């Protein structure tokens, strides 16, 4: 399929392009005029928002009448896993956002699954996932409509394709698809006089661990979509500095399947949460540090440990 090949090619180039865009001098791009931080940062899926959830804001530094680009690189390290994500976003007229991202999920503990069945998982397993996203702002202005409770509202779609590498057998065993599409609606509001940003997203998804374990599951696991809410709050300490927290609810599609296979809660999935600090040393650069709790991720191979750890993300936006 042509689209898939294109997607794969794009995704392959994402880290290179991200590097290029980070190095792009401001002079080569027309001046763009969002207020600092009001385009959010890049979430791990590539869409503008917080770290784990997309916001209703349109990414990049471009406001009405302008086109902007942004690039990001994120590294998240928990006790047993590591996630690297990088990508690009294009902001069109503060109305439409297009994004691509590639995730690399280091999941070495998954090799222990070979004890369950001869899955052939290699010791240094790296799952990869490509994400292509689009978001459209429907109405509202999250920042300037400060005399109204009306938030900025956007709808978005994230199409994801998992490359399971040597974990292909595991994904097959789960009965999960390697492609899936999330759709979401987001509402974001900056309570300007209080420097407080509040945000909620409602996502329709059948992804397991955001898609890193595929989409859906064999019965008695759940293959169908479910609606999952996601919330963020952020408080602006200065106009270039914010702290906040996020909570992303997730489905638990695989748990019942794991139980039926005699694995207990080995495949259970938890919500993702984090607390974060964002600093924008310039209009074109932001640094996000977070402490992330991914809950249990295939706890059967990680001694039931919660996956907590540090998250760092860099974003350049024009």
């Amino acid at each position, binding site marked *: 399929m042509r689209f898939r090949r294109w997607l794969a090619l794009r995704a392959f180039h994402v880290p290179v392009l991200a590097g290029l865009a980070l190095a792009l001098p401001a002079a080569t791009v027309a*001046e*763009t*005029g*969002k*207020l*600092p931080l009001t385009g959010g940062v890049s979430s791990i899926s590539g869409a503008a928002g917080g770290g784990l959830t997309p916001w209703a804001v349109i990414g990049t530094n471009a*406001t*009405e*009448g*302008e086109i902007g680009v942004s690039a990001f690189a994120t590294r998240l390290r928990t006790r047993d896993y590591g996630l690297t994500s990088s990508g690009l976003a294009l902001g069109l007229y*503060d109305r439409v956002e297009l994004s691509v991202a590639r995730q690399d999920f280091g999941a070495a503990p998954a090799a222990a699954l070979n004890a369950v069945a001869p899955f052939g998982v290699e010791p240094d397993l790296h799952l990869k996932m490509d994400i292509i996203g689009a978001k459209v702002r429907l109405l509202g*202005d999250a*920042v*300037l*409509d*400060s*005399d*109204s409770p009306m938030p900025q509202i956007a709808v978005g779609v994230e199409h994801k394709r998992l490359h399971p590498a040597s974990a292909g057998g595991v994904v097959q065993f789960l009965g999960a698809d390697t492609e899936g599409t999330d759709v979401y609606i987001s509402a974001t509001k900056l309570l*300007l*006089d*209080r*420097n407080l940003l509040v945000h909620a997203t409602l996502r329709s998804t059948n992804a397991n661990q955001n898609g890193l374990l595929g989409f859906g599951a064999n019965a008695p696991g759940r293959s169908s979509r479910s609606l999952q809410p996601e919330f963020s709050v952020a408080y*602006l*300490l*200065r*106009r270039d500095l914010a702290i906040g927290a996020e909570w992303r609810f997730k489905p638990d599609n695989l748990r019942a399947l794991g139980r039926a296979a005699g694995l207990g809660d080995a495949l259970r999935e938890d919500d993702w949460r984090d607390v974060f600090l964002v600093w924008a040393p310039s209009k074109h650069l932001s640094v996000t540090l977070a402490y992330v709790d991914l809950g249990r991720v295939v706890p059967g191979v990680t001694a039931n440990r919660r996956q907590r750890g540090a998250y760092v993300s860099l974003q350049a936006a024009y």
Partner: protein
Amino acid sequence: MPTRFLFSSSFCSARPAPFRPRHSGAAPARSRPAAMASSAALAFLMAGAAVQAGAQPVPPAQPGPAAAAQARAALAPSVSASVPAGGIPAGLYDALGRKEGIARIMDRLVDSAFRDARIGPIFKETKPQALKESLTDQVCVLTGGPCVYEGADMRAAHADLQIRKSDFNALVELLQAAMDAEGVPFTQQSRLLALLAPMHRDVITVR
């Protein structure tokens, strides 16, 4: 509430927006065109037409339809500054340094706006001192200070200028910098911005 006033005023109708103010250069004295340009620049932040030094605007000598419209715009009494949307935020007037502090902030704001590469050209026809005084009165009234301000509504005042959202944002940044320089705490800065931000609906003419 500024916008409610605007929508209920007789100047809701949008007029065509050529880049230069109409009659630019037509009048030798700083009568109508100067007042309009000044007010437009002023109302870039908020309503205002009485920027002409110390005088109520007077109708133009030769009233064409456009001039008449401008005259009405300039003469429309402003109640827009008297009652902020959510009431006057307690303590904000004092936090800005009362009228003297507000005057210093507006002094810095206008100076930096005139110098700014992005938005400086918008103020080409504006007299800086009159703009400073008018802005000071406006913010003073908005924040509950004992000031008087009379001016036109924002939509009419801006109709002749091309102001994009990025221009509006640029002015917000300059205002923040001016308040920084005057030692206004960030939390108080945001309370003032929350009063001014909704004006984007009338100030931004290029959508």
